[in-house]
C-alpha cells in the first residue's frame, strides 16, 4: 500500500519534471527563432564580401571578422543622412505631439467649457479611423501645399495621436481637484499649474507616451515613402528600401546587413534601457499586429 502510494507520488513528480522540461524546450525554440535573425544580421555584417560569397554553406561563426562593411555602409550610401533625417523627424514629431497632447488632455481633464463633451466624443470616435482612409487626402493636401520633400510635410500629419490624448487625460483627471483649487487660491495660473504640478505628477505616463511615439516614428515607412522621393529626405526605412534596390549593388549582402544592424541598434538599446516602461505602455495601449 505504502509502496504504491510512493510510486504514484514518484510518477507525478516525473510527469511534472517532464512537462517542465518540455515547456522550457518549447520556449527555448521560440526564443531561438526570435533571436536568430538578429544573430544572422550581425554575423553576416562582419563577414567580408569575398568570404560571404565563397560560402555556399554559410558559416555560423565568422572565420575572419571585419568591420569594413560598416565603413562601406556609411561611405557608399548616405546612411548617416538617413539617420540624421530620422532623428530630426522623430524628435520634432514627438516634441510637437507632446505639446499638443498635454494641452488637449489638460483642457479635457481640468477646464469646464461649453462643448467639451461633444468635442471629447468626437475625439474618441476618431480613434477608430484607420490611417489608410485619411492618407490619400493628406497626400494630395501636402502635395498641393508644395510640401513634398520637406520636413514639414513629413512631420505635420504625423503629429496627433488621439489615443495618447485619451491616455493622458485619464491620468490628469486622477489628480485630486483639491490641488487645483489650492493652486487657484494661491493665484497660480493654469499654465503654471499644468507645468509645475500636473506634468511632474504624470511623468510616468508622459514618458510612456514619448517612448511609444519614438518607436512609431523611427519605424514609420508608409507616409515617408509617399511624401519623399528625394533621397536627401529619406528616413531609415526608405533608406533600407533604396539600399536594397541598388545602393551597394544587389549582391553586397554583408554591407546591407551592416546598414540594417546600424539602423536596428538605437531602438534595441532604447528597449533594453526602458524595457519595463515600454512593455507596460504597449500593454496599456499599443497596437501592432
Amino acid at each position, binding site marked *: 500500500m505504502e509502496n504504491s502510494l510512493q510510486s504514484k507520488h514518484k510518477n507525478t513528480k516525473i510527469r511534472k519534471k517532464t512537462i517542465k522540461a518540455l*515547456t522550457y524546450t518549447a520556449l527555448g525554440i521560440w526564443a531561438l527563432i526570435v533571436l536568430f535573425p538578429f544573430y544572422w544580421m550581425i554575423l553576416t555584417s562582419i563577414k567580408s564580401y569575398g568570404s560571404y560569397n565563397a560560402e555556399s554553406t554559410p558559416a555560423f561563426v565568422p572565420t575572419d571578422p571585419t568591420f569594413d562593411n560598416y565603413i562601406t555602409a556609411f561611405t557608399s550610401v548616405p546612411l548617416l543622412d538617413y539617420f540624421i533625417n530620422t532623428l530630426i523627424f522623430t524628435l520634432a514629431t514627438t516634441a510637437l505631439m507632446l505639446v499638443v497632447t498635454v494641452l488637449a488632455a489638460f483642457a479635457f481633464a481640468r477646464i469646464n*467649457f461649453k462643448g467639451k463633451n461633444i468635442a471629447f466624443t468626437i475625439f474618441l470616435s476618431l480613434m477608430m*479611423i484607420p490611417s489608410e482612409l485619411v492618407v490619400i487626402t493628406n497626400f494630395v*493636401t501636402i502635395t498641393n501645399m508644395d510640401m513634398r520633400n520637406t520636413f514639414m510635410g513629413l512631420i505635420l500629419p504625423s503629429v*496627433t495621436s488621439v489615443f495618447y490624448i485619451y491616455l493622458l487625460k485619464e491620468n490628469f483627471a486622477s489628480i485630486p481637484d483639491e490641488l487645483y483649487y489650492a493652486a487657484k487660491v494661491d493665484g497660480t495660473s493654469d499654465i503654471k499649474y499644468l507645468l509645475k504640478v500636473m506634468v511632474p505628477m504624470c511623468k510616468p505616463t508622459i514618458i510612456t507616451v514619448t517612448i511609444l511615439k519614438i518607436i512609431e516614428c523611427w519605424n514609420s*515607412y508608409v507616409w515617408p515613402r509617399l511624401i519623399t522621393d528625394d533621397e536627401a529626405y529619406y528616413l531609415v526605412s526608405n533608406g533600407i528600401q533604396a539600399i536594397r534596390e541598388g545602393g551597394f549593388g544587389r549582391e553586397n549582402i554583408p554591407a546591407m546587413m551592416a546598414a*540594417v544592424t546600424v539602423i536596428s541598434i538605437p531602438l*534595441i538599446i532604447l528597449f533594453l534601457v526602458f524595457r519595463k516602461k515600454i512593455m507596460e505602455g504597449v500593454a496599456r495601449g499599443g*497596437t501592432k499586429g
Partner: protein
Amino acid sequence: MEKNNLKGWLYLLPAALFLGVFMIYPLIDVFVYSFEEGYNSASQTFFGVGLYNYSYVLHDPYFLQALKNTFILVIITVPLSTLIALGISVGLASIEKLRHLFQTIFFLPYVTNTLAVGLVFMILFAKTEYTDGLVNIILGIFGMEPIDFIEGSYAAKMFVLCFYTVWIVLPFKILILTSALASVKQDYYNAAMIDGTPRWRVFLKITLPMISPMLFYLVITGFIGAFKAYSDAVAIFGTELNVAEMNTIVGYIYDMLYGDGGGYPSYASAAAIILFVIVLTITSINLLVSKKHVHY
C-alpha cells in the same frame, strides 16, 4: 464662465487644428474622391459623379489579387498567431526561472524596424546563384529539395509572408495574454487543486473563460491589423508587389496613389473605402460572436 469657454478651446486649439486638417477633412474628402469619376490630379477636374471608381477597382485584376492575398494572410495568421501566443503565454506563466529573460526576448520583434528585419528574413529564405540560402540548407538536412521562397511559387512566397507576419505580431499578443493570465485570481486555482481537478480541465474551465475577453480583443485587433498588412510584404518582396503577385489591399491603395502606376486618388479612395467596409463587417461579426461566447 465665459472666460473659461475661451480658455478651454484655446488649450484644445492645436489638437483640434491638427485633427481637423489631417483627419476630419480627409475623412470627408475620401468619400468625395471615391465618387468623382475621371478625376485628374494635375488639373484637379472630374467629369461626373457615380460609382465608376468602385466598379473599376472591383474589376481590376491587381485589386482582386491583393484581395485574395490579404484574405489568405488574415485567415492563416490571425488564428495561428493567437494560438501560438496562447501556448507561449501559458508556458511563461508556468515557469519561474528565466521568465523575465524569455519575456524580454519574445518582445524584441516589437521594437525592431519591420523593413530592416524583413531584409534579413529575405536573405535567410532567398535562393541565389551563390547559395540556396540558410532555410533551404536546413530543409536539405531533412531531405527536401531547395525551394525558391522569394521568387518562386505562390505558396512558397505566401508561406514566407505568413511566417514573417506571425513573427512580427507575436510580441504584442504574448504581452497581452501574459498579463491576462497573471490577472486570473489564484483562489480559483487553489479551489481546483483541492478538488483534484486535472490540469487540462482547469485550463479549459477556469483559465480560458477568465482570459476570453482579452483573447477576443486580440482576435479583433489581429483581424484589423492583418487586413492592413503592407510593410511586411514590402520588406520581403520589395516595392514592386504587383509583379511579385504579393500585393495587399493597402499596397494597392498606395500603388494607385503614388509610384509607377500612381496618380489615381479616386481609385485609391474607392479601394480604401472597400477595405474599411470589409474591416467594419468582420469586426461587427466578431463582436456578435463574442457576445455569445465571451465571459465578462
